[in-house]
């Protein structure tokens, strides 16, 4: 019985995994496929993408034509349930509401967490990204190199299915043969954007996203993922065949009932459950890691959200994968005589160095793309192409005024009309209405292009979370986090650079940017809005200034691990999810080895 209530849990497990998203899903998958008995605790409800995903529903069938609201911030049909920047009954506190100093904390209280709705962009960190301090003197190096993580990137790509291409560009790693699926074919807007960007010296290459552009190789991949483990290979091969390739319709953010893209609930959990070693308890809000008299973690305490009762679970190893800030919160709330400032916090670094991604967007209108013939341009939900960071040398030479790079996600085309269609066209139409307005909407439909810069933030001493000193608690009585946030000039100048660059590309296309904000402090989106928050329990080589070692093992408590984004000592421009999975897999392999040697 894989889904268990607190009462039907076993007395003890090998490993408790707190969280079921990219980190928890990957950790549990690796452990269960290799024979460990795992209890997964998820704060949100059970969620079944096969039956709950709005695959072809149109906006006219949704309230408010499906626009985002505080209860469904990414739109009515977005996969997220019980999530958002505000979760009822689960407040948090921040030191300011100002644009530049606020942090908004996204949570997704559901099985699979935010992997159900994420953008599926799956970029590898490059060699520079693991050693940023060695390169420019800022922030922190990871205690591991690209070569340490590369085999795990390979495995993750083989397991979840990532499309892309190998271009051999600087700090933009290739994947070994057979790891990547073919990228989707570009649409007209992609070609138009690529031509103009390349004319400006900006590379445009295939995007990398966790979408099956064809079925995974169920003969070869399982052998490469689980060498020497015939049982795991068989389970995975069967599951891979149950995943259908993309049907080239409906946005990935809604989730995918045919399992054509990666979400923990459709990729990690089914084979882990089939292996027979995984128990999952949903609605289990973990708030504390318990400590035994031997100084080792003995398990966790959690609130059963369906009954409000406090419950306990026990295991030989505890893994926190609850999302960066939630994992930090659990550690900070786990106070004892040994650890009066929170568990595994002898360094004082738990909650420190929270980073998000620098985000800034520009859109514009391009006459070349007006009044094109009707075409189905849904594709794989866009992102056939992207622009990797291209100014490494100029940056290192100090010519840019900011130290770290960004990549560019862009889109265009004749996407499904909806509540945004025809909106705010005055800048193009002079405010007409009537028959002329309808003609103009037809003319301009599909002629807009959208650019999103996603860049690296350098960790700083002013961006962190702590237990709210004002004593605010959530509805279960668990003390909440207070966030402090500050950008440095490196981030705001980068945001201004994004704005200028995107304006240049649109202009080079013969188009008009809608608005360019050259003041970086205004152009940068507030902290937490890109939902790439990492840090809070960073890994390092020195126990005095980091929380975990290179294996995600806390320095202070040998059988306590943190495998989510909390351990990131830097936050490269590359979206963090693929790296979260690769680092979690590496940590889980280490746990397995230590369990076999009876060291944990």
């Amino acid at each position, binding site marked *: 019985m894989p889904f268990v209530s607190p009462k039907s849990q076993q007395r003890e497990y090998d490993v408790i995994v707190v969280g079921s998203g990219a980190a928890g899903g990957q950790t549990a998958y690796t452990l269960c496929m290799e024979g460990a008995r795992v209890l997964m605790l998820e704060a949100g409800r059970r969620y079944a993408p096969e*039956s709950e995903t709005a695959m*072809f*529903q*149109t906006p006219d*069938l949704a*309230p*408010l*034509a499906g*626009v*985002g*609201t*505080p*209860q469904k*911030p*990414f739109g*009515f*049909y977005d996969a997220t349930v019980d999530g*958002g*920047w505000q979760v*009822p009954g689960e407040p948090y506190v921040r030191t300011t509401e100002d644009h530049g100093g606020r942090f908004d904390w996204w949570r997704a209280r559901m099985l699979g967490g935010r992997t159900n709705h994420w*953008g599926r962009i799956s970029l590898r960190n490059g060699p520079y990204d693991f050693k940023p301090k060695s390169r420019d003197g800022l922030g922190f190096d990871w205690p591991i190199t690209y070569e340490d993580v590369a085999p795990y990137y390979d495995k993750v790509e083989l397991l979840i299915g990532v499309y892309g291409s190998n271009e051999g560009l600087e700090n933009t790693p290739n994947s070994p043969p057979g790891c990547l699926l073919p990228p*989707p074919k*570009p*649409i007209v807007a992609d*070609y138009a954007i690529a031509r103009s960007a390349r004319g400006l010296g900006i590379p445009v290459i295939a995007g990398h996203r966790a979408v099956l552009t064809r079925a995974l190789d169920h003969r070869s991949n399982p052998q490469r993922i689980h060498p020497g483990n015939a049982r795991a290979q068989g389970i995975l091969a069967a599951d891979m065949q149950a995943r259908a390739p993309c*049907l080239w*319709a*409906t*946005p990935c953010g809604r989730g995918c009932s045919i399992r054509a893209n990666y979400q923990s609930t459709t990729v990690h959990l089914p084979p882990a459950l089939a292996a027979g070693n995984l128990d999952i308890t949903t609605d289990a809000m973990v708030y504390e890691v318990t400590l035994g008299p031997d100084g080792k973690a003995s398990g966790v305490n959690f609130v059963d959200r369906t009954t409000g009762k406090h419950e306990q679970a026990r295991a030989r190893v505890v893994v926190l994968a609850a999302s960066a800030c939630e994992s930090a919160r659990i550690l900070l709330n786990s106070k004892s005589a040994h650890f009066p400032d929170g568990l595994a916090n002898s360094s004082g670094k738990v909650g420190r160095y929270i980073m998000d991604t620098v985000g800034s967007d520009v*859109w514009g209108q391009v006459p070349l793309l007006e009044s094109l*013939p*009707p075409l*189905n341009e*849904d*594709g794989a*939900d*866009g992102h*056939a192409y992207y622009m990797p960071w291209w100014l490494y040398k100029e940056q290192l030479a100090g010519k840019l005024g900011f130290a770290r790079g960004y990549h560019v996600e*862009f889109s*265009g085309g*004749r996407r*499904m009309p*909806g*509540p945004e*269609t*025809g*909106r*705010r066209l*005055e800048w193009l139409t*002079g*405010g007409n*209405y*009537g*028959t002329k*307005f*309808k003609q103009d*909407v*037809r003319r301009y439909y599909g002629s807009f292009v*959208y650019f999103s810069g996603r860049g690296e933030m350098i960790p700083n001493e002013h961006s962190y979370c702590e237990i709210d000193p004002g004593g605010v608690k959530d509805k279960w009585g668990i003390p909440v986090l207070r966030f402090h946030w500050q950008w440095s000039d490196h981030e705001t100048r980068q945001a201004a650079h994004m704005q200028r660059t995107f304006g240049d590309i649109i202009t080079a296309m013969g188009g008009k940017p809608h608005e360019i904000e050259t003041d970086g402090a205004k152009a940068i989106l*507030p902290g937490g809005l890109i939902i790439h928050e990492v840090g809070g329990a960073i890994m390092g080589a020195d126990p005095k200034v980091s929380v975990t070692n290179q294996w995600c093992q806390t320095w202070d408590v040998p059988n306590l691990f943190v495998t989510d984004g909390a351990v990131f000592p830097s936050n490269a421009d590359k979206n963090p999810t693929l790296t979260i999975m690769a680092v979690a897999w590496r940590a889980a392999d280490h746990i397995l080895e230590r369990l076999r040697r009876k060291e944990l």
Partner: protein
Amino acid sequence: MDRRTTIKWMLAASAAWPAWRSAAGQAGHGTALRQPPAGPGYGTDPDLVTPHQRGEFWPLTLSAAQRRLAAVLSDLIIPADQHSPSASTVGVVEFIDEWVSAPYPDHQRDRPIVLDGLTWLDAQAARRGAKGFAQLDAATQTAICDSICDATRATAELREAARFFALYRDLTAAGFYSSPAGRRDLGYLGNVPLTSFEGAPPELLKKLNLT
């Protein structure tokens, strides 16, 4: 227009536009998405796969007279033509009613703009001796709309009315292009399962000089 309404309109105009998803698939970034709703709304875990009716989650609140006026104005903005029917015939009035009746911050902000704007239109008709805007002849209706259809050209005393018109045009378009008739009008061919996706047709790329 009274002072209270004017101030409300000024405040509304300075606030960020509703944080709609753009075609880029990005969530909007307005702070309104990060504020609690003023009522229960549809909750954080609504049924996503069953079609929903207007008024299912919160009561619709426009009066019969307001709905009549809303229909007239929507159809001035999106009339029937050879490609598609008029806005009011595809449910746009019900959409706007649902919108201004919703408990969310963006919608609560829009509500007084729409209601005051409808009142303003009838007041203009009254000044011309008519019972209401709906009863004016088409030429007079058009003349009033012409005076407020572009906020950048509107005179100072009409600026608030122009902001109302811009919002109302956006809402009309939102309701219309979300409907099956709106999708057909634009020749949208997607949202159907395919066995392969071929991307841009080579002959079109050639014509656009993009090869």
